[in-house]
């Protein structure tokens, strides 16, 4: 397998684009990634297009917008891990030696439809009659499992929302760039206990793209090629309750074990992680799943300041956070989590998310992340989990 580099990335601002077609959003991301890499469309040998709602033909429609060069197109759908799975397919295309330079695009147009609409015939729907199967319920219960095991309080989860919304104020591409102090998060409208409105990611539209190249050719295009040190995909192994309560933990742990081994590093080597905070509860679970803190310590970890940009709680929030801090807690890692503002602020247009996370890490490794720059970032990880279930981890290195 050859070494693979990312030589160009892009992400359009996530939000709502009612006047534009999703292929136009995706084409803009693709075009901007080409410009970022300094590569012409005709140099691209294959396209990997991640889109969940428009699956079939999504990639061909992108090329109809930005350049019909006749190259192979692979359309990918893999729940929330759609974009990152497209990226991984692109990675393998280069690593295997099949191609030298390819493009991965992730896109989605969700509009204002929530995820709460009823599906199918209301007479025979199970939703709300035999429990709940929608994401707010799944991630509410996943958080409650952590509370059950370790006594994690609602406030601990809420701090993930405070942190990520704080980070988002420095990300002009985020769908929302508004701070939310702890009391605002806690007093927000309840969606599914313990997650309030500000602890749930918004739906929206967006696109992101990456240009991948073999490392030996990458220097023709850039002085800062970013190495893909690991690219991993797992599905859920058999666990006791996973047919009723989706298990978001085991497959993430399996992916982390493989990814650290592939990259030859440990969690303590990660400067930063963009992880899948679709709900605030999920962020804390993934601290432990990815080995960023010890088992059961996620609540103490976020309150310690370690995963915040600068590895400290901002002065204005110190008073709010103090009651949830354990002064004796020594963070295992100083890995900054979700410097972009995370899905909670940046938005989560399903197919776009996995590529956007990679773009974010690349900008930090190049030192181009502006006011939210993680100082001296050398190694970053992008994590995505899609329910039913798919987990991708990509480790990127300077």
């Amino acid at each position, binding site marked *: 397998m050859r070494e693979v580099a990312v030589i160009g990335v892009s992400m359009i601002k996530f939000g709502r684009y009612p006047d534009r077609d999703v292929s136009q959003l995706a084409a803009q991301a693709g075009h901007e990634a080409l410009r970022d890499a300094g590569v012409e469309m005709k140099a691209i040998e294959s396209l990997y297009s991640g889109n969940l709602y428009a699956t079939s033909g999504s990639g061909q429609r992108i090329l109809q917008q930005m350049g019909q060069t006749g190259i192979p197109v692979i359309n990918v759908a893999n729940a929330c891990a759609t974009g990152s799975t497209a990226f991984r397919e692109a990675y393998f295309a280069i690593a295997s030696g099949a191609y030298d330079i390819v493009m991965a695009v992730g896109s989605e147009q969700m509009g204002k439809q929530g995820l709460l609409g009823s599906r199918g015939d*209301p007479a*025979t729907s199970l939703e*709300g009659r035999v*429990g709940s199967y929608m994401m707010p319920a799944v991630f509410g*219960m996943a958080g409650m499992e952590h509370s059950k095991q370790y006594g994690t309080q609602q406030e601990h989860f809420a701090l993930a929302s405070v942190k990520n919304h704080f980070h988002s104020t420095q990300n002009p591409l985020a769908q929302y760039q508004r701070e939310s102090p702890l009391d605002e998060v806690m007093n927000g409208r309840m969606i599914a*206990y313990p997650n309030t409105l500000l602890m749930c990611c918004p739906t929206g539209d967006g696109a992101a793209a990456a240009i991948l190249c073999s490392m030996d050719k990458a220097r023709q295009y850039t002085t800062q090629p970013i190495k893909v040190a690991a690219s991993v995909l797992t599905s859920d192994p058999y666990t006791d*309750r996973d047919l*009723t309560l989706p298990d978001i933990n085991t497959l993430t742990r399996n992916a982390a074990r493989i990814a650290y081994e592939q990259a030859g590093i440990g969690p303590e080597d990660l400067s930063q992680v963009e992880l899948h905070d679709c709900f605030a509860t999920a962020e804390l679970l993934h601290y432990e799943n990815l080995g960023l803190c010890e088992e059961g310590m996620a609540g103490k970890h976020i309150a310690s300041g370690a995963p915040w940009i600068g590895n400290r709680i901002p002065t204005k929030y110190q008073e709010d956070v103090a009651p949830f801090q354990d002064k004796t807690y020594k963070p295992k890692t100083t890995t900054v989590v979700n410097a972009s503002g995370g899905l909670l602020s940046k938005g989560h247009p399903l197919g776009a998310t996995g590529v956007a996370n990679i773009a974010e890490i690349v900008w930090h490794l190049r030192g181009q992340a502006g006011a939210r720059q993680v100082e001296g970032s050398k190694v970053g990880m992008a994590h995505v989990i899609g329910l039913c279930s798919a987990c991708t981890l990509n480790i990127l290195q300077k």
Partner: protein
Amino acid sequence: MTLRSHGCGSAACALSMVNRRKKKEESSLAETAAPELRPLVPYLTLGETRDKDFLNGSRCTKCNTNYVGPRLYCSKCSSEGPFEPIRLSPEGEVHVWTIIHQATPYVQAPYIAAIVDLPEGVSVNTNIVGIEPKPENMNFGMKVKMFTEKVSEDREGNSYVAYRFQPA
């Protein structure tokens, strides 16, 4: 983002689809099919009266793993069984819960959604009723008991019965 359509696993879904299709074909032969009483999930067996209803499961005779509902293959040991039908206990314990405040339009919120563990080593998705849906009223490990009731009716007049749990 799509979830399993319900908690019984894909093989069971497949079975229920086949059964439903069969039923449909049969009913299309008869001009005026009488409205039926149907279970909302394939793993609920209806008795003569509601107090005779029970949840059904299956046991893989190769590895002894129990499942909710019927199965074609074992997702744990990958064997084709054979599977032996089992009757699941109506009594269980709350593993985790959440309170849904933003519900789908035809459902009244807030309500308690939970995962209940049954003594056979399986768990089911369910609503917990008979308690005011407030976090302070809920406990992990709380003992609950199943009951069934009619929850909906389709355009052809068929009624659907669902199971729910309430404090034991």
